[in-house]
C-alpha cells in the first residue's frame, strides 16, 4: 500500500467534507450583507461600531472553527462511518492527525478570505481601525481554541448535536479564566487596563487551546482503541430494566400521543440542553441587569429549538420508520413541531414574566419600557423558531443545520426590521409572512419523510422563500409605483437650462454677509411672532441703537454703541456696502440678519424724517441713512437674484416687497434721490429678468438636489429649503422624496411657464406639502414713540416688525409684481 497516497486520500476526504460548511458560511455572509445593505445606515451603524456585515465577516472563522470540529468528527459518528474509517489500514493516530490538520488548514483559509475582505474594506476607507485592531488581536487565537475544543468534545461525546451544544459554554472558558485572573491578580501592577486584558486573554486562549488540542489528541486516539469491557458489556449485555410485562400492560396510546412521546423521548437530551441554554440567556439578563443582554443567547436557543423539530428524525434516517408505515404527513408534522413549540412557549413566557417591573434582579433598565422590549424579544424568539424549523427541514446535515439555523433566523429578523424601517412595511405584514416557513414545512413534510429531495421539492421551497421575501416589499413597491414623478418633457427643459448655466453656478460661490456683533436685534423666534423690537433713541446725543429683549419682563436697555460722533449706523451700512463690493457673486440667504438690519434702518430713518422737529443734523443723518439703506436694499435684491438656489430668490422677493413699499410712499423720489429711485424702480419693474432668475434657480436647485443622494439621518436640501421627510425610512424615504421633490419642481416650472395664478391652487398645495410652508398674515411695521409704546422714556421709540422667513414661491406672481410694473410704467412718464 502506498502510504503517501493513502494519507493524501484521507486528507482529501476530510477536506471534501468541509466544503459544504465553507460554502454555507460564504452564502450566509452574502445574505447578511444584502440585509445590511437593505437596512441602510439607519438601523445598524452607530458612531463607534462597524456595520453588521463586517461583524458577520468576523464571526465567520469562529463558526467555521466550531462547525469544522463538529462536522469532521461528530458527523462521522452520527452516520456511523467512523467504524469504517477505523477499519482502514491507517492508524488511529493518523486519522486524528488528519482531522486536526485539515481543520486547522481550513481555518487558515477562512482567515485569509476574511483578511482579503478586510483589506478591500480598508482601501475603501470604511474600516474602524481601532476596533479591528482589538478584534484581530483577540479573535484568531480564540477561533483556534474553538476548533480544538469542538474536535475534542466531538471525540468524547460521539455525537455532533451534543458536541455542538457543549461548545457554547466551553467557548466562554478563556473569558471566564481571564475574569478570574483579573480578580485574583492585584490591580496595581498593571498600568494600562486594556492592554493587560488583551495579554491575559491571549494567554488564556493559548492555554485553553493547548489543553483542548491535547484532549482532542487523547480522546481521538482512545476512540480507536478496543472498547473496554465495561463498555462492551453495556453494548450487548442485558439491561437492568423492568421486564417485558411492562409494555403488555400499558394501554395502546392514540397515534398523536404515541408520536409526541416518541419525539420527546427521542430528543430529550438536546431539548433539555437547548432549554438550558435559553434559561442561561435569561440569567445573563439578570446578572447584567439589562433586559436584552442575553438576547443573542436566547435567539440562538430559539433557533436551535426550531432546528430540532425536524433534525431529530433526520439523524440516521429515523423518519423512514414512520414513512414506511404510511403515517400521515400532517400527523408527523404536528407531532414534530408541537413539543418544541410548547417548550419554547413556556420559556418565552418565563422570560416575559421576568420583565415585570419591580422584579428584584432588574436593577437597571435602559429602555423606557422593559415590557415592550420584552415583548419584542418574545416575538423575535418565535420568529427564530419558525425560521429554525424551516432550516432544519431543508438542510440534510445536522451540524450545518445547527450552525445555519441561528444565522438565517437573525438574517430573517434583520430583514423584517429593515423592511419596516426602510421600506415602510406595516408591522402586521412583516409578522404575517412568518407563516410562510410554517406552511412550507407542512406542505413539504411528505417530501422530507420520503427523502425525495428532487427538483420539485426545491422549487416549492423556493416559492415559499420568495413569498417570505417579496410580500413585505409589496407596500413599498406599491407606494413607489403610485407616486407620480416628473414628466419627461419638463425634465428635458430643465436639463437644457442647467447645461446653459450650470458651470456658471459652480464658479461663483455665494457669500454670506455678516453684521458686527451686537448690532442686530436678537432672533427670538422663527419669525412667526413678533420679532425683537429695535429701539432708537431719539436723543441725538445718544444716537445709538439699543437693544431690547422682547421676551424679558423688565426692559433692559443696553447701550451698546459708542459716542454719537461716529455715526455707527452709517458705519455699519458702509461696512455692508464694502462686503458687497468685494465680491461679484450671489449672496447667501443665511445673511438675512443683514437684510433685516438694512430694512429696519430704512423704516426708522424714514420715521425720523417724517417726525417734524429735531435738530438739523439728525435729519441729515436720517436722510443719509435712508438713502444708503434703499440703495443697499436694491443691491441686496440684485445680488440675491444671482443665486442658483430657490431660497435666495424668495428672499429677494421679500426685500423687493419691502422696497416697493418704500418706493410707493409719497415723496419717495425726493427722499431717495431721483437716480436711485429710477434704478430701484427699474429693478422692481423688470419682471422678465426676475422670472428668468427664478427659472434658473429652479433648474439649478433641482440639479443640485439630484446629485446628492438623500441621507436617512440628515435633512434633505432642495434649493436651500429643508424637505419634510417622506414616510418610512431608508429606501422609501429616498425614492418617495425624489419623486415628490421632482413633482414640486415640475409644479414650479409649470408655474413659471404659466406666469399666472390660473389653475395653480393644486400646485401650491403640493409645494406647500413638500416644503412645509405656512401662511403668514400681512404685518405692517410699526413705530411707536414714547407713551404710545408703553415705555418709560417718552423720547424712546419702539419699532415693531415681523421678519418673515422665505417660503417656496410664496410671493411669486403676487399683486406686488403688478404694482411694481405699474410703478415702472409711471416712472417713465413723470
Amino acid at each position, binding site marked *: 500500500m502506498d502510504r503517501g497516497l493513502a494519507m493524501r486520500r484521507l486528507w482529501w476526504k476530510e477536506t471534501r467534507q468541509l466544503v459544504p460548511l465553507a460554502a454555507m458560511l460564504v452564502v450566509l455572509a452574502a445574505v447578511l450583507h444584502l440585509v445590511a445593505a437593505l437596512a441602510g445606515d439607519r438601523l445598524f451603524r452607530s458612531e463607534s461600531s462597524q456595520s453588521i456585515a463586517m461583524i458577520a465577516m468576523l464571526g465567520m472563522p469562529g463558526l467555521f472553527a466550531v462547525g469544522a470540529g463538529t462536522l469532521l468528527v461528530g458527523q462521522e459518528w452520527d452516520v456511523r462511518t467512523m467504524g469504517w474509517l477505523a477499519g482502514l489500514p491507517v492508524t488511529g493516530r493518523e486519522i486524528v492527525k488528519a482531522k486536526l490538520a485539515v481543520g486547522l488548514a481550513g481555518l487558515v483559509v477562512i482567515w485569509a478570505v476574511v483578511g482579503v475582505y478586510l483589506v478591500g474594506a480598508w482601501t475603501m476607507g470604511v474600516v474602524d481601525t481601532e476596533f479591528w485592531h482589538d478584534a484581530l488581536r483577540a479573535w484568531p487565537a480564540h477561533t483556534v481554541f474553538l476548533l480544538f475544543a469542538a474536535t475534542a468534545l466531538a471525540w468524547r461525546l460521539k455525537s455532533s448535536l451534543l458536541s455542538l451544544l457543549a461548545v457554547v459554554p466551553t467557548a466562554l472558558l478563556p473569558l471566564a479564566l481571564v475574569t478570574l485572573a483579573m480578580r485574583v491578580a492585584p490591580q496595581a501592577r498593571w498600568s494600562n487596563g486594556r492592554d493587560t486584558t488583551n495579554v491575559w486573554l491571549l494567554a488564556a486562549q493559548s492555554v485553553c487551546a493547548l489543553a483542548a488540542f491535547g484532549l482532542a489528541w487523547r480522546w481521538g486516539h482512545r476512540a480507536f482503541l478496543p472498547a473496554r469491557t465495561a463498555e462492551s458489556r453495556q453494548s*450487548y449485555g442485558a439491561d437492568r430494566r423492568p421486564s417485558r410485562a411492562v409494555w403488555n400492560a400499558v394501554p395502546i396510546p392514540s397515534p398523536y400521543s404515541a408520536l409526541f412521546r416518541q419525539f420527546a423521548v427521542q430528543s430529550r437530551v438536546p431539548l433539555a440542553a437547548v432549554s438550558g441554554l435559553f434559561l442561561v440567556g435569561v440569567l445573563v439578563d439578570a446578572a447584567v441587569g439589562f433586559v436584552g443582554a442575553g438576547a443573542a443567547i436566547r435567539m440562538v436557543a430559539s433557533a436551535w429549538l426550531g432546528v430540532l423539530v425536524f433534525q431529530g428524525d433526520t439523524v440516521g434516517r429515523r423518519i423512514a420508520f414512520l414513512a414506511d408505515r404510511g403515517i400521515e404527513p400532517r400527523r408527523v408534522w404536528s407531532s414534530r413541531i408541537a413539543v418544541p413549540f410548547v417548550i419554547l412557549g413556556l420559556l418565552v413566557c418565563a422570560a416575559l414574566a421576568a420583565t415585570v417591573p419591580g422584579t428584584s434582579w432588574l436593577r437597571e433598565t435602559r429602555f423606557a419600557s422593559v415590557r415592550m422590549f420584552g415583548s419584542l424579544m418574545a416575538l423575535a424568539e418565535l420568529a427564530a423558531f419558525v425560521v429554525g424549523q424551516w432550516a432544519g427541514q431543508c438542510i440534510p446535515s445536522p451540524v450545518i443545520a445547527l450552525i445555519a439555523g441561528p444565522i438565517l433566523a437573525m438574517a430573517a429578523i434583520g430583514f423584517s426590521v429593515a423592511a419596516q424601517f426602510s421600506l415602510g412595511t406595516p408591522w402586521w405584514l412583516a409578522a404575517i409572512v412568518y407563516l410562510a416557513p410554517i406552511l412550507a414545512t407542512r406542505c413539504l413534510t411528505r417530501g422530507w419523510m420520503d427523502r425525495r429531495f428532487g427538483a420539485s421539492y426545491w422549487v416549492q421551497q423556493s416559492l415559499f422563500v420568495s413569498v417570505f421575501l417579496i410580500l413585505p416589499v409589496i407596500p413599498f413597491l406599491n407606494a413607489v409605483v403610485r407616486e407620480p414623478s416628473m414628466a419627461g418633457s419638463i425634465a428635458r427643459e430643465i436639463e437644457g437650462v442647467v447645461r446653459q448655466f450650470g458651470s456658471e453656478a459652480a464658479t461663483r460661490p455665494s457669500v454670506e454677509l455678516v453684521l458686527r456683533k451686537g448690532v442686530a436685534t436678537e432672533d427670538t423666534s422663527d419669525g412667526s411672532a413678533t420679532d425683537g423690537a429695535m429701539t432708537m433713541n431719539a436723543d441725538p446725543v445718544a444716537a445709538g441703537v439699543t437693544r431690547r429683549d422682547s421676551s424679558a419682563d423688565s426692559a433692559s436697555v443696553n447701550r451698546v454703541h459708542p459716542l454719537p460722533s461716529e455715526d455707527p449706523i452709517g458705519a455699519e451700512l458702509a461696512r455692508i456696502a464694502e462686503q458687497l463690493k468685494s465680491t461679484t457673486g450671489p449672496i447667501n440667504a443665511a445673511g438675512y440678519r443683514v437684510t433685516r438690519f438694512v430694512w429696519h434702518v430704512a423704516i426708522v430713518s424714514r420715521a425720523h424724517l417724517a417726525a417734524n422737529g429735531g435738530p438739523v443734523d439728525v435729519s441729515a443723518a436720517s436722510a443719509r441713512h435712508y438713502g444708503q439703506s434703499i440703495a443697499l436694499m436694491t443691491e441686496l435684491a440684485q445680488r440675491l437674484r444671482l443665486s442658483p438656489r430657490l431660497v435666495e430668490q424668495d428672499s429677494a422677493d421679500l426685500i423687493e416687497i419691502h422696497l416697493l413699499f418704500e418706493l410707493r410712499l409719497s415723496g419717495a423720489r425726493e427722499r431717495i434721490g431721483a437716480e436711485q429711485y429710477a434704478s430701484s424702480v427699474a429693478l422692481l419693474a423688470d419682471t422678465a429678468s426676475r422670472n428668468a432668475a427664478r427659472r434658473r434657480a429652479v433648474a439649478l436647485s433641482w440639479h443640485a438636489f439630484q446629485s446628492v443622494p438623500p441621507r436617512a439621518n440628515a435633512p434633505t436640501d432642495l434649493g436651500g429649503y429643508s424637505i419634510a421627510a417622506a414616510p418610512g425610512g431608508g429606501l422609501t424615504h429616498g425614492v418617495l422624496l425624489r419623486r415628490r421633490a421632482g413633482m414640486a419642481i415640475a409644479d414650479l416650472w409649470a408655474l413659471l411657464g404659466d406666469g399666472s395664478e390660473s389653475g395653480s391652487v393644486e400646485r401650491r398645495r403640493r409645494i406647500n406639502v413638500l416644503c412645509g410652508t405656512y401662511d403668514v398674515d400681512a404685518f405692517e411695521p410699526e413705530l411707536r414713540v414714547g407713551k404710545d409704546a408703553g415705555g418709560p422714556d417718552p423720547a424712546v421709540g419702539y419699532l415693531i416688525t415681523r421678519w418673515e422667513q422665505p417660503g417656496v414661491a410664496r410671493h411669486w406672481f403676487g399683486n406686488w409684481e403688478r404694482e411694481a410694473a405699474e410703478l415702472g410704467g409711471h416712472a417713465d412718464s413723470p
Partner: protein
Amino acid sequence: MSTESREPVISVRQLAVAFPACDVLRGIDLDVERGTVFALLGENGAGKTTLIRILTGYLKPGSGSCRVLGLDPVRDAMEIRRRVGYVSDAPALYDWMRVGEIGWFAAAFYAPGFIDRYHEAVERYEVPEDRKIGHLSKGQRAKVALALALAHDPELLILDEPTSGLDPLVRREFLESMLDRVATGRTVFLSSHQVAEVERVADTVAILHDGRFRVIDTLSRLRETATEIVVSLDDPLVVLPLPGEPAEILSDRNEGRQRRIVARGLVETQLDEWRARPGVVDIRVRGATLEELFAATVRGRDGMMTGN
C-alpha cells in the same frame, strides 16, 4: 379480509423510470395473483429496489402505470403503505426504543390486535423484549422488523432483500413466516438474490436484468422448460442451428470439445435435429436449476451460435 377478488394484487404495465445517469427500468409488465409468492430476482443494481420503491410510492415512475391493492402509488402512497407490510433492506428502527416498546408504539397506528400478534411473533422469534434495539444483532433487528410488518396482518407483504447477510436460522424463520402468510391466503412480493431460497418458496419468478424482465413465469413451468444441455462435439468449430420460437437459448459456453447450453422451451425434436448434425457426438439433457437459469440469464450468451 376483503372480498376475494380475482384482481391481481399488484399489476404493473409498461413501467419505466430513468435516473440521470441510466435507465433503471425500461418497460416492466407484471401481475401478482392473490395468495402467491412473487419472487423478483436480479443482480445487485438491477432495479429491484427501484421497482419496490415505485410500488410503495417513494419514487415516481417516468412512464407506465401500476396498481397496488387497487390503488395508485402516485396518489395513494400512504394508504398503500398502511395496508402493506413493507420490510426494506436495512429497515429503519428507533435504536433507543426497546423491542416491546417499539411494538407498543407502532400499535398506536393500527387496528387493535396488532400488539398481540407482535408479541406472539417476537416470542416465536425468540427476541428478548426488554432489550434496546440498538443493542440487537443484525438478525434480531431483521426479525423485529418482520414482526412489525406482519403484526397488522397485511394483505400484501413486500420484502426487499430481507435476509441478506443473515444466518441460515434467521433466514429459515423468515421463510416460514412468509409461507405462513401465503397459507392463509395473503400475498408475498419478495425481492432477493438468495436463489436457493426462492426456489423453495416462489410461485412466480421474474428475473430482472438490464431494466427488463428476461424471464417471468411460474416456477413449475420454468423448471419444466428450463434445461441444461451438454453437447459433446468432435470439432469445436461446429455450429448448431438456433432453435425456432418459442424456444430460447439463455447461455452457451464452450469448454474444449463440449458445449454447455442453458435453454428454455427446447423440445425433443430440436434436440434430435442437433443430434443429427455432423460433428455432434452426444447430447445430455437435464433440468436446469433456478440458479443456473439465473446465471445464464444474467450473464448472457458468449458462445457461437448462428445468428449471433
